[in-house]
């Protein structure tokens, strides 16, 4: 059986998990009220229609009667707000994969789904790559040939990688070990964020291991419907991280989408519930702010913060919300004297990883983000804090304000 055409059947655990949750849907429409996409475009009818309702009519042996699920951005908010525990986003991820498998996956999706490929190509030629990606004729060409929208926010290659720094960096031995899973954004575009994560962890007494063989978690491939390729990536990563977890280390990351992939999405969406390495890694993975707040609860967080007399807007990314842990970054930022923190309650910035890059989806993504961009403007904050890098790039694009990972603010408040 070609695994990419498999469908949940009563024999797989996935059937219980996903299809089985359908019957809990009471049609209350709470997911519809929360869906960022269906609220701005008729092209996606909404999580309830595309998910629990349409799923009953999907037959693995027959062509899909319904293609709109390709417009679901996969943000996962529907699953988070469902009071009945229906796996709406996960069902729609499967439906999206099947639709894309039938339609054919565009070359663009295969490329944007591989940040490591882009990173390896772009890093050595960073000045040239960065300049080209900001040249109008090249972007117009890229839109016409590839379907990447000419105005979509693209990050700048740092010209160096995080791991090249990590290779030379030696964390002071404290015996209190954590493993740092940095993700592709840190590796190729924001190595300085990774350095600050390490510094903040060290400042709190951790000895930080950076496994040099770590690679992409596969999330962009998964959200583009390329499940087989995504499985290969995430399992490779799990093999690298699991031995550390087995030795008792916890795994910490600053990319909330990628840590969510390790914690839950790979297991549920990619049907990898049974992989022992991934299961262990999933249980041992923490978001950096989640970990620091737990330290604080135990009275173990270093709170020698210097005052930061500034105003910051905080947006919790959808995939951070998918951790189901509230907003630990808010509680941490509240510890910094003088720092004025404005909580944004708009749902989504629109980008959803690679969704908002696509020519046919860019306008939708920008419309989704409107509420957030307006709230940021209204807050008068000078900087926007947000845990996910793709969201930060979209927010900078939509608000023309600088953004920062919450850890960058803590790093500054520590005076490191």
């Amino acid at each position, binding site marked *: 059986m070609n695994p990419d055409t498999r469908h949940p059947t009563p024999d797989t655990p996935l059937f219980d998990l996903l299809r089985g949750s359908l019957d809990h849907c009471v049609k209350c429409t709470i997911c519809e009220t929360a869906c960022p996409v269906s609220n701005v475009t008729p092209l996606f*009818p909404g999580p309830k229609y595309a998910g629990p309702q349409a799923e009953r009519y999907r037959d693995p042996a027959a062509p899909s009667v319904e293609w709109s699920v390709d417009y679901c951005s996969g943000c996962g908010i529907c699953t988070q*707000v469902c009071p009945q525990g229906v796996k709406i986003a996960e069902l729609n991820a499967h439906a999206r994969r099947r639709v894309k498998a039938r339609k054919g996956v565009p070359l663009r999706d295969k490329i944007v789904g591989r940040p490591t490929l882009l990173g390896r190509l772009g890093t050595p030629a960073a000045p040239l790559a960065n300049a080209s990606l900001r040249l109008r004729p090249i972007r117009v060409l890229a839109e016409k040939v590839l379907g990447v929208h000419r105005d979509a926010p693209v990050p700048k290659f740092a010209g160096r990688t995080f791991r090249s720094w990590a290779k030379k960096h030696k964390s002071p031995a404290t015996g209190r070990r954590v493993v740092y899973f940095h993700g592709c954004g840190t590796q190729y575009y924001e190595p300085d964020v990774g350095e600050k994560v390490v510094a903040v962890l060290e400042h709190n007494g951790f000895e930080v291991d950076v496994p040099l063989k770590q690679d992409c978690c596969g999330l962009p491939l998964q959200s583009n419907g390329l499940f087989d390729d995504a499985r290969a990536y995430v399992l490779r990563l799990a093999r690298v991280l699991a031995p550390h977890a087995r030795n008792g280390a916890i795994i910490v990351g600053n990319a909330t989408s990628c840590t969510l992939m390790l914690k*839950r999405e790979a297991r549920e969406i990619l049907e990898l519930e049974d992989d022992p390495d991934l299961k262990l890694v999933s249980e041992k993975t923490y978001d950096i702010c989640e970990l620091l707040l737990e330290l604080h609860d135990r009275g173990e967080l270093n709170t020698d913060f210097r005052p930061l007399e500034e105003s910051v807007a905080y947006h919790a990314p959808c995939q951070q919300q998918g951790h*189901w*842990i*509230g907003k630990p970054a808010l509680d941490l930022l509240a510890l910094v004297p003088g720092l004025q923190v404005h909580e944004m309650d708009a749902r989504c910035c629109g980008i959803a990883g690679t969704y908002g890059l696509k020519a046919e989806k860019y306008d939708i993504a920008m419309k989704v983000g409107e509420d957030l961009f307006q709230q940021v403007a209204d807050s008068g904050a000078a900087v926007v804090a947000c845990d996910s890098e793709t969201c930060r790039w979209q927010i900078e694009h939509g608000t023309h304000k600088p953004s920062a990972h919450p850890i960058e603010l803590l790093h500054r408040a520590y005076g490191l």
Partner: protein
Amino acid sequence: MRYDVVVIGAGVAGLTAGARLAEGGARVCVLAKGMGSTHLAPGTVDVLGYDGGERVESPASVLPDFVSRHPDHPYALVSVAPALEWFAACVERGPKPGYRYVGSLEHNVLLPTALGAARPSALVPTTMAGGDLGDPAPICVVGFRVLRDFHASLCAANVARSGVEARGVEIDLNLHTGRAEENSLGIARHFDDPGFRSAFSTRVAPSLRPGERLGLPAVLGVRDPQGALTDLEQRLERPLFEIPTLPPSAPGIRVYDILRAALRSAGGRLVIGAEVVGASRDGTRVTSVRAHTSGHDHVYEARWFVLATGGVASGAIELGSDWVARENALGLSLSGAPADGAARFDPDYFAEQPLNRIGVAVDSSLTGEGTDNVLVAGAALPGAIPWREGSGEGISLSTGFAAARTVLEREGAAAAA
């Protein structure tokens, strides 16, 4: 995670308890599996609409006798008035400028439902108050073709049976969304836009007759409903009011926004998506609850817990295929369940069903049976049939409020000792 109080559930009862506790200085965290029932409820505060099938004119005068006949009812354990007062004040300082709740316990207002039935409520939002069926002014109910769950003529025909002259009109909204149908929240977002309201006024004006009030499905905006109401009343030169819709409910979502803002501005945490699946105990004290979250479960320690997860409708209380009823989050004892061997269901669907009054067994301070530090609020309580009594919001507000007060009093007493 360590807190003074962990509240489980983010409906009216849970958010009220959480907000009150945070206002009282407690370190509080509200955990919920998903969003609460606010998004489905009409947004009115119904305290007691019916007593034994008879419509209640004045909850304040009926309640003393009502609780003497129903000693197991939540209203026998708490007082309602202070909670309502707090809620009204909470709306006033909330995020919706000018939006208020009006009314009192002395007199139920009768408002039309989407079907045009008269619904008795104690407090109603200012955007609905104009629909008072005690007012003889004729009503024009305007429906939108794109909102397929609301039938203006049906609503008007039933309103007319209450003795108020009413007629229904359906118009096209021209939303330009490219969708054949739209839900009430989607339409409400359009009404936040003054340009849309202006176009709407022009479109609807020719259908209206002099002296008529205008009843619309509840879509008058999410951000600034009062602004939308005032604007449209000026443009159309007549009173205007909202009629609650089938879910999603824009006025219900406003209640969520208001209570959430109260909780957050007082420093309370809110965690959506975390389902509480178990508790650790030390004798009669619950010491922590375990929440199912992504990757690994989280343990929330607290000195107090408020259980506000709802009743059978939310899934908080379940009747298993083994015919055993259970409370799912903490495994507390239930009361109001039929005895072993007794009938579970009455074949007459509309009869009072044997399980109707089931809930978590509590003492007179709302403390869960067999625990010292778990208070129970809202639809999880036994002894009421909110959908028959028209008492859902009244119970949730007053018991959420009372649970918070009990915790704060006992914390205060412990601190003094």
